[in-house]
């Protein structure tokens, strides 16, 4: 992981805030649409309730150019290593939103096939509840993440 941030001091406080602010203004999500939540993620990206207001309307397919991974849908045992590989190939600073009940806790499918909670594979920053969470729910999750980043909580990434 990135080197731990220096303790906040008067000299870099403003720079830290500026960096935190800059990082949230245009976070490009890596399109990791898996199941039903992916449909709601696309609906959030489309015209009606628009992600372009936060500078996030372009879903980068390749992890190299993505800052935020929205795990939208149920993660099966076969998909977990792929998810981990894509997460590893993303450049720091990177964040993860676990969208929906299936991604956060395995949801209603407590059986052999699903990874019960994607936080066993990647570190999750914001969990969005719902099955599937509506576009408003996802946008609320994104805003929560942005506020915490610009407040400097995740600056160490």
């Amino acid at each position, binding site marked *: 992981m990135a080197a731990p941030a220096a303790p906040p001091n008067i000299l870099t406080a403003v720079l830290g805030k500026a960096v935190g602010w800059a990082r949230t203004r245009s976070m490009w999500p890596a399109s990791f649409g898996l*199941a039903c939540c992916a449909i709601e993620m696309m609906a959030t990206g489309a015209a009606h309730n628009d992600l372009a207001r936060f500078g996030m309307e372009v879903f980068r397919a390749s992890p190299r150019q993505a800052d935020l991974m929205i795990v939208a849908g149920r993660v099966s045992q076969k998909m977990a290593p792929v998810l981990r590989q894509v997460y590893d190939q993303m450049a720091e600073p990177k964040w993860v939103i676990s969208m929906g009940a299936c991604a956060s806790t395995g949801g209603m499918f407590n059986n052999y096939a699903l990874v019960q909670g994607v936080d066993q594979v990647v570190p999750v920053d914001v969990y969005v509840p719902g099955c599937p969470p509506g576009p408003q729910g996802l946008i609320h999750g994104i805003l929560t993440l942005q506020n915490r980043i610009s407040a400097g909580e995740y600056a160490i990434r």
Partner: protein
Amino acid sequence: MSKPPDSVTGDTEAPPTGAEQAPPESPGDQGRAKRRVVHDLWLSGTEAPVDTGRFTDEGAQEMLLEEEAAVLAGQRGTLVVDDYAAGVEPSTEQTQIVNMGPQHPATHGVLRLQVELDGETIRRVKPIIGYLHTGMERTGEALTFMQGPTNVTRMDYLSPFHNELAFSLAVERLLGLEIPPRAQAIRVLMTELNRVASHLLWAATTGLDLGALSMMIYGWREREAVLAFFEKTTGLRMNHNYIRPGGVAADLPDGWEEDVAAIEETVLAGLADYEGLLMENPIFIERTHGVGVITPEECLAYGVTGPLARASGIDFDLRKAFPYSGIEQYEFDVPTTEHGDVYDRFIVRFEEIRQSLRIARQVAETMPLGDYRSEDRKVTPPPRARLDQSMEALIHHFKIFTEGFKVPAGEVYEAVESPRGELGMYLVSSGGAKPWRLHVRGPSFANVQALPVMLTGSLIADTISALASVDPVMGDVDR
């Protein structure tokens, strides 16, 4: 080609896949050990607990450089000999095997296509699926019949109503339950509007794949109108759990006729825009004519149904052949075209949107009055108000929601025409409150299997449009 699984561990020894075989412990063994362990949580910001990234190799399921003739024919899609299968002559160039893998913008979900490329042209294709396998058929056996629709509706997440309808029809046929006409009409209305919403999403994402970005914005704009009506009626935009064995969960909200009329007006206006935008556009025509062709014989052999089969000239629609839920009283026609390429699939699906809207209008005009679920209180819970008046209603309510209603033993196969083809439910009941076996025949499962037929010999750009025109929904494929 792959050695049969040895009887004790049932583990198929992965044949050498071009990479040097790891000494005694193949990645598969480590993978199994690592996967079954429930790892502790990885708190954000801390050191990574374990390295699971290395085990994406699927051993025997992957494509090999040299394959036997039978497997090669399957991957080249030349199994069905009909009069216009163009033979793909083996090239002398050095080819490479590339992954259009699980995380890919154009595979409409987590479908992994292994393609052997000769420059830009595709020599053979092997679809690898299972990346969204949720064990739903196993979960179906653990839930009662009452809870079944919640599990089933998450399979084909673009047409949840069709899943629920197929499940409910199968259970009702086993029960021999009569459904009041109003419930049947509501079911037809909801499934046809669901077909419109699913085709709109398909048009949006396929347009996006072909480069028509505005198509994505338009498609979703109309779809939101339909989803608003679904949310108003069922309470949810998706995964509604609205069509249940015995009828529907709630009656239509008042003023629903105006909503359906408004939907029809916006969607028809939108449809005129799409056809103006796409159908005469020379670039679009060049990108879709003669791409992803599948012939009627291949549709029959591979079990490809729905708009794909109708675009190849097979005039077959389950709503006409095996009418269900009272759909035979509405007239609509079944669009078919001849050439079976991507352009024809656009024609067929746009026409199907018009026909579904036509059915919705007829349902709105002739909606019968009466109860929206069957009177048999063994299956459908009594109205809430009755609970504190009659002891019997309380007992029925209690029994239905605790152990669920019992379905007589037997097996039945019930199919509905989903936007992607024939969605069938094979339900075996052992007389208990939970299904003994629930097999779902997903239309996309057969359509994805026919991909080698459509993609072999075409360019990569054609693959994107052909794959988008098949409209595979991975929840339907992997279940």
